[in-house]
């Protein structure tokens, strides 16, 4: 009797399992997503324009280099204490990657008689792709100076980095 039950039970179990697998196979399938991605960004900051304004008793010039990465300023023949000029500058992000101004380094502006000032620019200012940013440099003979016949050389370096604060 027992032997007969086993002869029925085991094949039955096997059949049930096969049926289950088959059912599972019938109602399942895998979907595939295929795709590609590529990066084509360009990081490029340039001087767009530079012009002189508020010229008093001096002969200033401002020239942008051919590659637009260097601006040369000459403020010649400051005639008297208080004489000077302002150079209005526009920088543009002509690339496709958002940028941010990380460092401003000025050298050669430690002479108390001839003063070099940056106006309207500071670190951590973002400039998105296609955006322009205006600021100015003022160069003048200090009105408190009693010393003439002087000259200085100065440089300003603006360090831009990719702005990681946008997007994902």
């Amino acid at each position, binding site marked *: 009797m027992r032997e007969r039950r086993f002869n029925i039970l085991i094949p039955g179990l096997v059949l049930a399992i096969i049926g289950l697998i088959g059912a599972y196979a019938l109602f399942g399938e895998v979907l595939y997503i295929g795709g590609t991605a590529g990066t084509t960004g360009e990081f490029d900051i340039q001087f767009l324009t530079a012009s002189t304004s508020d010229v008093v008793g001096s002969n200033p010039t401002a020239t942008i280099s051919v590659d637009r990465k260097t601006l040369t300023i000459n403020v010649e023949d400051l005639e008297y204490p208080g004489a000077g000029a302002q150079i209005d500058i526009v920088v543009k992000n002509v690339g496709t990657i958002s940028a941010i101004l*990380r460092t401003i380094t000025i050298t050669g502006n430690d002479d108390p008689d001839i003063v070099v000032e940056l106006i309207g620019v500071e670190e951590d200012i973002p400039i998105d792709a296609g955006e322009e940013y205006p600021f100015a440099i003022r160069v003048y003979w200090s009105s408190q100076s009693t010393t003439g016949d002087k000259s200085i050389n100065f440089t300003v370096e603006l360090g*831009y980095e990719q702005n990681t604060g946008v997007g994902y």
Partner: protein
Amino acid sequence: MRKRPVFKKTKTIIFLVLVYTITLGIGLALFSENIHIEGTANTLTYECDESLNVTLTKLDLENNRYTIGDIPPRVIIEDEYLVENELFLVYRAIHRNSPANRVTNLSFKLNNTYPFVLSEGETYVTYSSQNNNLFNVNSYLSLNTVPIGSDVTVSVSFNTRLNNLSEEVSTTIKIEYIVNECHKYFYFHIILLPML
């Protein structure tokens, strides 16, 4: 099992570090750049000399007025002229028995031959009066800051009894101005003539 030599392991590690650093460096260099401004500036020679002298280019006595009230005039303006940039004002007494109490506003234009901007706090004017006993001249300046080409007004009042005046008397007012530690002066003179 044979042990891998230490030297080979070290080489591998160094190689991997180098590759990682170069990759990182390339990644950074791609997304940063500097732009530069180069500049020069120079001043002309500065000297404390005659080029800083102020010249008087305009005399304006239209503001001459009496003191407050209705006191009739005691003096009249007889003449005014410049001699080597020194201003001379000549008054004549017209009433003997009353004190003269006339206030005169002397307005003249400063014209620097050397174009200086005079800034407040560094440039100021002082005044002194070289006087005799018959004159009492008070003068003051209406402003201390003197931009290029400004009008400067000096008020002068006379507190002198004209009944004692029998001959010409005069006083000189010296105005000192300072431009960046250069001391300069100019003068004007007031002459009072007795009644005719």
